[in-house]
């Protein structure tokens, strides 16, 4: 295990596949792409199975001094492991979703997707600040091409907006990174995570990083590129955009903003809360009035990402773990929802909600899966959505009950728009003959839906699988943040229990009992 540079291998496989795809025709290209992503999936599974839970913080480290100015340095902790797992899990599904839908210029299409995969894994594995930046920024090019070439009618506007928004966000981060490296004398991420930057400088650095991550995340009010990009991107593009690309913003906060600038994070927490509250309420309301299915799901993504940000800036373990689980869950669920939209879009070539109706009659299996993913998006106990949202909101409740109150309305509004969407598409009378004549899922679609459904239920019923690898890293982060944690308005009840026991039991109760005794656990906490 030690001898094999497995992370480099995971980066290399899709890259080689991409080059091969460029030269191949449509039929071969999709087979190559599927093979490459499946190989990466296997490597990812290997990675997870050999990851030592509770072992050293950074594992699978690789280092090669082949560049000047920065280093080829890879390594993962539990947080990165989970996000890599999400990436390699979603990628074969994306290729599957494109199997028949992409007819023109398929070679270039699959090549772009495979390059995306390389860059996404690169972002999560990079241990050098500038290597991270290169991977982070390079993702713009393939995504720009994916939206622009294979997108819908308004694709050019959407691709410009995506490119320029994210570029403007990240260039300032580059300047901040240069300053940090100059100050700390190293571009090694683990070292920087423990470095104490002067508090005054942290403010500026935090803002520069925030500019980048807030756009990527996206946070209200910089989210407007997302609905455009989603609506115009092909199905697989939307899946990868919602599933993994948005998580780079959250990963950025958890890897850089919080551990590197804890004081500034505390200082700006009210800003995050304000933007997140606005996002939850406003984008949920906007989602309620959408006529386009993809746009609706895109707005719901913004609302879910706002739950992630409040959880991250709750400065406690529940909040951080909850945010990670929301990110994973949202990656799978929103990916699945876009896929569900894609399934019917492939048949009728419209995303207009009113053109559908009564699909439960002619597409029962589809209706079942769509129901599961809708419920997971709403956050029904037993599905992945519940665990993360519950933990995040618990976390923020300990910090600010008002923020928790406002953000919780997001759950109610989420239920409203998702169920409303589901009712209009799946239930009711079959208004349109062509929609009524659509066939149910075929074998390929079953093959894509089943893994997603299993993942959603697994994460909902036994989240420990996903919490275990990152527990130690989150605990480390919590300890790092402890010195800076702003005083919350709801810490009265925690004083009743001895602090050491509280943190320990707290986490355990949550992780094991959440899905079964969710409300009771909450009560127990309050008492």
């Amino acid at each position: 295990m030690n001898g094999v540079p497995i992370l480099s291998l995971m980066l290399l496989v899709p890259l080689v596949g991409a080059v091969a795809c460029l030269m191949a025709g449509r039929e071969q290209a999709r087979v190559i792409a599927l093979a490459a992503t499946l190989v990466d999936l296997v490597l990812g599974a290997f990675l997870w199975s050999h990851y030592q839970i509770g072992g050293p913080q950074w594992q699978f480290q690789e280092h090669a001094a082949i560049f000047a100015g920065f280093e080829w340095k890879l390594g993962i902790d539990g947080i990165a492991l989970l996000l890599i797992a999400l990436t390699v899990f979603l990628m074969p599904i994306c290729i599957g979703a494109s199997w028949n839908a992409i007819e023109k210029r398929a070679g270039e299409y699959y090549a772009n997707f495979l390059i995306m995969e390389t860059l996404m894994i690169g972002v999560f594995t990079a241990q050098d600040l500038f290597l991270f930046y290169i991977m982070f920024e390079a993702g713009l090019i393939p995504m720009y091409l994916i939206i622009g070439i294979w997108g819908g009618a308004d694709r050019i506007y959407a691709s410009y907006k995506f490119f320029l928004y994210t570029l403007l966000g990240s260039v300032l981060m580059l300047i901040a990174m240069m300053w940090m490296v100059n100050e700390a004398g190293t571009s090694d991420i683990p070292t920087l995570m423990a470095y104490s930057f002067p508090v005054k400088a942290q403010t500026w650095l935090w803002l520069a990083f925030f500019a980048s991550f807030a756009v990527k995340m996206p946070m209200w009010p910089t989210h407007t590129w997302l609905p455009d990009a989603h609506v115009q991107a092909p199905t697989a593009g939307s899946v990868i955009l919602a599933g993994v690309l948005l998580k780079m913003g959250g990963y950025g906060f958890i890897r850089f903003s919080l551990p590197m600038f804890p004081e500034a994070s505390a200082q700006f927490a009210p800003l995050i809360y304000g933007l997140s509250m606005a996002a939850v309420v406003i984008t949920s309301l906007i989602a309620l009035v959408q006529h386009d299915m993809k746009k609706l799901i895109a707005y719901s993504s913004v609302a879910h990402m706002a739950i992630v940000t409040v959880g991250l800036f709750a400065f406690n373990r529940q909040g951080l773990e909850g945010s990670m689980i929301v990110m994973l869950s949202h990656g799978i669920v929103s990916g699945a929802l876009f896929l569900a939209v894609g399934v019917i879009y492939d048949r009728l070539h419209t995303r207009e909600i009113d053109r559908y109706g009564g699909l439960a009659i002619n597409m029962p299996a589809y209706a079942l899966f769509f129901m599961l993913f809708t419920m997971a998006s709403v956050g029904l106990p037993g599905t992945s959505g519940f665990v993360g949202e519950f933990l995040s909101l618990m976390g923020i409740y300990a910090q600010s009950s008002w923020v928790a109150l406002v953000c919780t309305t997001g759950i109610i509004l989420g239920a409203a728009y998702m169920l409303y969407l589901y009712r209009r598409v799946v239930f009711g009378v079959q208004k349109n003959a062509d929609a009524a004549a659509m066939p149910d899922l075929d074998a390929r679609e079953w093959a894509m839906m089943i893994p997603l459904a299993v993942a959603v239920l697994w994460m909902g019923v036994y989240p420990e699988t996903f919490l275990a690898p990152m527990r130690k890293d989150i605990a480390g982060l919590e300890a790092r943040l402890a010195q800076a944690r702003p005083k919350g308005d709801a810490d009265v009840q925690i004083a009743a229990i001895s602090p050491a026991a509280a943190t320990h039991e707290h986490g355990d109760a949550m992780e094991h009992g959440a899905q079964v005794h969710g409300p009771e656990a909450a009560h127990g906490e309050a008492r």
Partner: protein
Amino acid sequence: MELLRSLAITGTEEVLSISGLILLLAAGWGGDKASRAISIAAVAVLTVCAVLTVPALCHAAMGPGVSAWNGQFSGDAFAAFGKLLIYASAAVTLIIAPAFFERENAMRAEFPLLVLLAAMGMGMMVSATDTLALYIGLELNSLAAYVMASFLRSDERSAEAGLKYFVLGSLASGILLYGISLIYGFTGSTSFAGIHGALAGPLFMGATFGIVFVLAGLAFKVSAAPFHMWTPDVYEGAPTPVSTFFATAPKVAALALLMRVSLFAFGSQPGAWQQIVIFVALLSIVIGALGAIGQDNIKRLLAYSSINNVGFMLIGLACANQAGAAAMLVYLAIYVAMSVAGFVAVLMLRDADGAPVESIAAMAGLSKTRPALAWAIGAVMFSLAGIPPLFGFWGKFMVFQAAVQAGLLTLAAIGIAASVIGAFYYIKVVKVMFFDEAADVVTGQSDLAQRVLLFVSVVAISPLGWLINKPLGELAGRAAAALFHIA
């Protein structure tokens, strides 16, 4: 002894001038029919000169040991770095030119000679350590360049380009000369070392004026805003191989000269010129970016792009330190590769009759008709925009890092934010090629030499370029160290 030593140090200039004269005789004898043979010979001469230059760079030559002709001329590593880029650019021009001019029936035997003489002038520019040597080199290069710009005599645009370049170039030379005379008047010296010493201490108002005039004249030569107006017209009007030349070799020479003058001759008074450089840099970035947005001719667009890129390079100069100079040199090397790739690609855009295509609209849907060419141009565009993982990013990275290390945070922040404006027009070109329906204009074939050059230069700016970033950085570091070596 001293004479022999000086002759040895100026070896490449002697090779260039003697072989230039011999080839001139050959041209007189053979006429235009011999132009291809003369071009090949000229490329060979440039190769020999490049080989002669390499040792100075590898051995990090610097100091009085490599100073020739009583301090007029320096054969140090810095000059060697610039010369290698200049010779390479000149050779590229010579390789791509014959095919282009032969189609117009305008290939003349003088062309390779003009390139050789310009290369010699530029070699003197980067080696000059005296204002007089500087001026002779600059004029030798400029006179050759004016003729080259109007080389397509029958083409109105080419004649216009040559005239504009000549009139405005002469004006700039005049301004430069005036500045030099002021500097001489207030310091009593024409040598850089003498000026460096004399400027130390309190600064005379007259000397400040001299510095400003010298910088203004040189800003014209590097086509930095607000002295950039000639650039789009000249790049558009000049024959494409000549535009390739203008975008590369003279830019390297003028920037290297500007570096030597600012950092060495005026090096004892960085405060006097730093503000000017910062202003010019930011203005160039913004004007280069905004001006390019409305362009529909790809050559004009590349001209604005060169203004934009010069702005970024000047950020390295504004640092006024060795790291900034090294960053500039790295950027310059990458910029040469990007420009060569860009202009060679433009040269390969031909319609069914083989006539050059220059409008951006005609490139629509190029990715369907000529995918390899479209990907190459796409790589050039993203690289010029400085988007990683393309190697163009590294140049920007280096200069911005130097600026941050020098404490010029505001400059770096504004400059990098303005680079987003530039990204807009670069991705517009990509959009036209990749997203639009095919216009089917570009159907002509390109020759092997162009394809090889395009391939080599695109590989250099592709992510594979990262493999050379370590040696490139080391060489640039040595060159910059030579610049800061005060004897």
